[in-house]
């Protein structure tokens, strides 16, 4: 991936910095918070002794003991329901749902309970829970290891929804989420765990160790919730993206030579409307990209917002590039996944080329 105009999202501080992939950055965030605050507890399917199927919690049980990091029964409802009770007690639970596809059995405990507990009780009871879960496709995971359910959460008042696109943000956003007093859905694009995947599945992926955003400061820092980042500065068109699609968008910009400004939303709710508005008013054009199915996806909300904020500045209709309105297929994964070719086509179209 050409480094061109890709924006550094942090300045190397005086802190010690280590090269980390995204899993290591996430594990580091958990470690930092568990060391700092003994109300932070981590649990979920296979997260204890084994350290999670993606190894995000490896070593935490050995370090913090079995009552702060432990295996849960295979009951997503129970995992989140327990977390709500723990949150009401005063803990800061960080449950893991093994794949975002498996969060639905817990949907009622999330949407009816965690999200509304503060409202119901005037803040007497809160659910300061961070639900970590791997999201998105690109690993031949088929219908049940590939889905992107973010829109199911952005529709629910009381929840925050966060999705990092690189190790630096992953750690900083995760620490910020754990410290947040509201329930946070923390979606981890699993295709990015090892490197900044740009959608070219037939090429080797650059590991994070060779990417600037794989430089992760040691110790405590936060990336604030509700603030987008400009992942690539540009002037022709604004691409609104998050997670894996940030890298696909950057790649499409480089490949088409269209000077797109790529906004990495980072937090979907609350959304950084200011950064979006500024960029679209500057470029006059907008593309929205996500992996989730199109209809009622978060892209619809982004289109609505851009239209509300920038209607008179738009020189062309906004285009959505998304997963198709089908379940996530297995063999046709790369025809489903919105790769740089499809984003490139949209770029050319929105530019009137």
């Amino acid at each position, binding site marked *: 991936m050409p480094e061109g105009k890709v924006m550094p999202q942090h300045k190397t501080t005086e802190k010690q910095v280590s090269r980390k992939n995204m899993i290591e950055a996430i594990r580091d965030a958990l470690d930092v918070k568990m060391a700092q605050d003994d109300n932070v507890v981590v649990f979920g399917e296979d997260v204890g002794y084994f350290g999670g199927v993606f190894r995000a919690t490896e070593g935490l049980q050995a370090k913090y003991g079995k009552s702060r990091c432990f295996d849960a029964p295979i009951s997503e409802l129970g995992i989140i329901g327990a977390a709500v009770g723990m949150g009401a007690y005063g803990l800061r639970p960080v449950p893991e749902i093994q794949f975002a596809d498996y969060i639905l059995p817990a949907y009622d405990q999330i949407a*009816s309970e965690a999200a509304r507990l503060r409202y119901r009780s005037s803040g007497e*009871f809160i659910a300061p829970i961070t639900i970590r879960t791997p999201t998105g496709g690109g690993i031949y995971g088929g219908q049940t290891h590939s889905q992107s359910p973010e829109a199911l959460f952005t529709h629910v008042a009381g929840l925050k929804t966060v999705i990092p696109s690189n190790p630096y943000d992953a750690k900083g956003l995760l620490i910020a989420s754990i410290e947040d007093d509201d329930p946070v859905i923390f979606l981890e694009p699993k295709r990015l765990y090892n490197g900044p995947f740009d959608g070219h599945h037939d090429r080797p992926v650059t590991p994070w160790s060779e990417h600037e955003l794989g430089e992760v400061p040691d110790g405590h820092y936060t990336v604030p919730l509700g603030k987008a980042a400009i992942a690539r500065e540009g002037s022709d068109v604004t691409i609104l993206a998050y997670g894996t699609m940030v890298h696909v968008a950057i790649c499409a910009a480089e490949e088409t030579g269209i000077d797109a400004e790529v906004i990495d939303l980072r937090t979907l709710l609350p959304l950084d409307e200011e950064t979006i508005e500024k960029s679209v008013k500057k470029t006059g054009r907008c593309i929205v990209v996500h992996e989730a199915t199109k209809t009622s996806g978060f892209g619809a909300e982004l289109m609505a917002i851009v239209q509300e904020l920038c209607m008179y500045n738009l020189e062309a209709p906004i285009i959505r590039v998304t997963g198709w309105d089908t379940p996530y297929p297995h063999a046709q994964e790369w025809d489903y996944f919105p790769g740089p070719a499809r984003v490139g086509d949209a770029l050319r179209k929105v530019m009137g080329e």
Partner: protein
Amino acid sequence: MNDEKPLSLHVPEPSSRPGDKPDFSHISVPEAGVVRKPEIDCTPASIRDLAYDMVRVMDDNGRAVGDWIPDVDDAFLLKGLTVMLRTRIFDERMFMSQRQGKTSIYVQCRGEEAIACAQRMALSQGDMCFPSYRQQGLLIAQDFPMVDMINQIYSNSKDKLGGRSLPFFYSERDYGFFSISGNLGTQFMQAVGWAMASAIKGDTKVASGWIGDGSTAESDFHSALVFASTYKPPVVLNVVNNQWAISTFQGIASGESANFACRGHGFNIPSIRVDGNDFLAVYAVSKWAIDRARKNLGPTLIEWVTYRAAAHTTSDDPTKYRPADEAEHWPLGDPIERLKTHLIAKGVWDETKHEALTKQIKAEVKAAAKEAESYGTLGKGAVPPVSEMFNHVYKDMPPHLRKQRQELGV
């Protein structure tokens, strides 16, 4: 294989419907005092029979008999009588208030007062209950100010929940009363999570989860048992079997021939079935379970056998689905009457005192209702500010919500 007879679906039916004579012959009521009281560290396997039996302390003459007689004094029992009576009179008044349009909906717990009141009296300060919507006794047993309850019921200007929540959906952290949810069952699992937190922190606090017979069919009931059996946290798991969901009798949830206590057996959780209209039995078994929990011996499942004597809510008309006089035939009687009989038998109470107490409570309740009314009733008089609707969605109001509030001009 083609000589088989056709299959058929079994659909359980209650023993009587409107027009039928009420029939509770399927409820066998053992003699009071016959069920043994095990040690609190007994193995679950050693008390499996207790899930099929029924712990009862007061006999038909109001005398306390058997192992389970709790170690409490008369003042304690008089307090129990008082709070049960207050709960009932409060309910009656609020029922009327709903009929008068002061609130949108109300639920009574008539006939079930002993369960919440006695268990609360067995719990300690700091313990946390996760009630369904029919445990107002948990607050009243602690002399919680009734006017505050009514403010919430009336969604008035002093409703501490700002009018956001449904009436009677209290939240009283300092009184160990978790915020009520309208979604059945969810709180049962949360109680287990809270208890796990208490154990994780090396605390000494106990959680108490509440669920109705009908709601045991919900998924949360299962996950609560799974997590409770795995982590053995300090939790009391209460199933209030009041025989009815809305129009659906308990047999649809229990599969008729099973009961709710024995659901604990599959999880190796000590499980006890109790006469829920017997204040002494409720207190004694609650205490036993709470002691177990507090001593790190883990969860207990209790089925309280009782009867929902009133309508499901003010929106419900039970004569549509059960005999109008069913309550009168309920074999376990009325919890207030029974404790009263016991106290009279003991010589510490009489009808005159009881009448005086009733009168006094009625006056208290009336005064509380009047006071609350002066702060407004649903949609009338002083009401919570419209802007309250936007509060407490998040800790800090995010920009999009602020914008919406401004759009509404509040």
